[in-house]
């Protein structure tokens, strides 16, 4: 009998705790979109270690070549302070017109004025959300950090649509949102970023 009373008390406390916590659960996905057809676990199954190692190697090589060809420190200095310079990847300023990606931006995920780091197939770079995130906000690709043009095994096996891993910093440099997984839908010259409406 004593055990029953204890169990009932425990059950009441459990229900209460679960109820409170469930009410706090953030619900950020009001509608189903094309973006969500890619399962995050599929992206995680990719050979991430190999990709990361390739990124580092190619980025390092790109830095070395770029410094030989154009040793202009002012180019790196022009990067806004919110970008984590050199922490993950050495910065190399490349021409964004060489980047063949098209990004869909979810306005729930990217804030205006924020700087995003993206990996899109064979390119890692920074994009800046330049206007308010309304229906036709623009996103400007600022810097392409590394291009993995010399990793044919990765490029050949990449799926379509191309997965892109996003994370971002606020202008103050502090991460405000969790890293999210987005999808690069098309490969085109220039970056086109329609913002999904609510």
């Amino acid at each position, binding site marked *: 009998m004593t055990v029953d009373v204890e*169990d009932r008390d*425990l*059950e009441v*406390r*459990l*229900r209460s*705790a*679960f*109820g409170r*916590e*469930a009410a*706090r*659960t*953030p*619900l*950020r*996905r009001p*509608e*189903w*979109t*094309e*973006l*969500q*057809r890619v*399962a*995050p*676990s599929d*992206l*995680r199954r990719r050979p*991430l*270690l190999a990709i*990361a190692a390739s990124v580092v190697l190619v980025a390092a090589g790109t830095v070395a070549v770029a410094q030989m060809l154009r040793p202009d420190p002012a180019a790196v200095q022009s990067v806004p302070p919110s970008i984590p310079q050199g922490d993950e990847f050495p910065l190399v*300023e490349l*021409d*964004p*017109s060489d980047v063949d990606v098209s990004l*869909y931006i979810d306005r729930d995920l990217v804030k205006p004025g924020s700087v995003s780091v993206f990996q899109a197939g064979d390119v890692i770079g920074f994009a800046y959300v*330049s206007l308010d995130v309304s229906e*036709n*906000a*623009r996103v*400007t*690709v*600022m810097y392409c950090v590394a291009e993995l043009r010399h990793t044919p095994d990765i490029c050949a096996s990449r799926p379509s649509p191309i997965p892109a*891993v996003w*994370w971002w910093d606020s202008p103050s440099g*502090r*991460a405000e*949102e*969790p*890293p*999210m*997984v987005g999808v690069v*839908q098309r490969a085109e010259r*220039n970056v*086109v970023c*329609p*913002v*999904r*409406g609510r």
Partner: protein
Amino acid sequence: MMRSLRPIAGDVDDEPADTDFAAFYRRAYPSARRLAHLLTNGSGDADDIVQDAFARIHDRYRELRAPDAYLRRAVVNGCNQRFRGRSRESTRLRLVAGGQAAESRPTDSMLDAVAGLPARQRAAIVLRYWADLDDDEIADALNARRSTVRSLVHRGLITLRKDIGS
């Protein structure tokens, strides 16, 4: 250097084929998200797990006779798998994000005690006392027998009673 680009109108919102699934998503998402949140102790993996579950259902939605049960099982499996081994990507991305947890972790001592349970006991406890499922439904979600469910709940309650008591 910088290049502003023109948006393309109408590409993202055109989803004529997904009407039924979209309705299912709208209805089922909140409870799936809350279930994942509780099972992962608010660790920030819940979004991925839920998206994973819906993405798995999406392609076979019309074939499913009980999509809610399927979704529940997919979420529970996703949470259990995530706890068995976090991927390097998740860890790395969390580091890149400055070590910030995606959501504030619960500080409730009861929830902390639940989070300390083995994955299947935790799932059984959450499904019983949050989702109010019966033994059969929990057994379906956990792909287990009814007797196993009763055992999981019983052992979970014993552990919780000890933890909370101490």
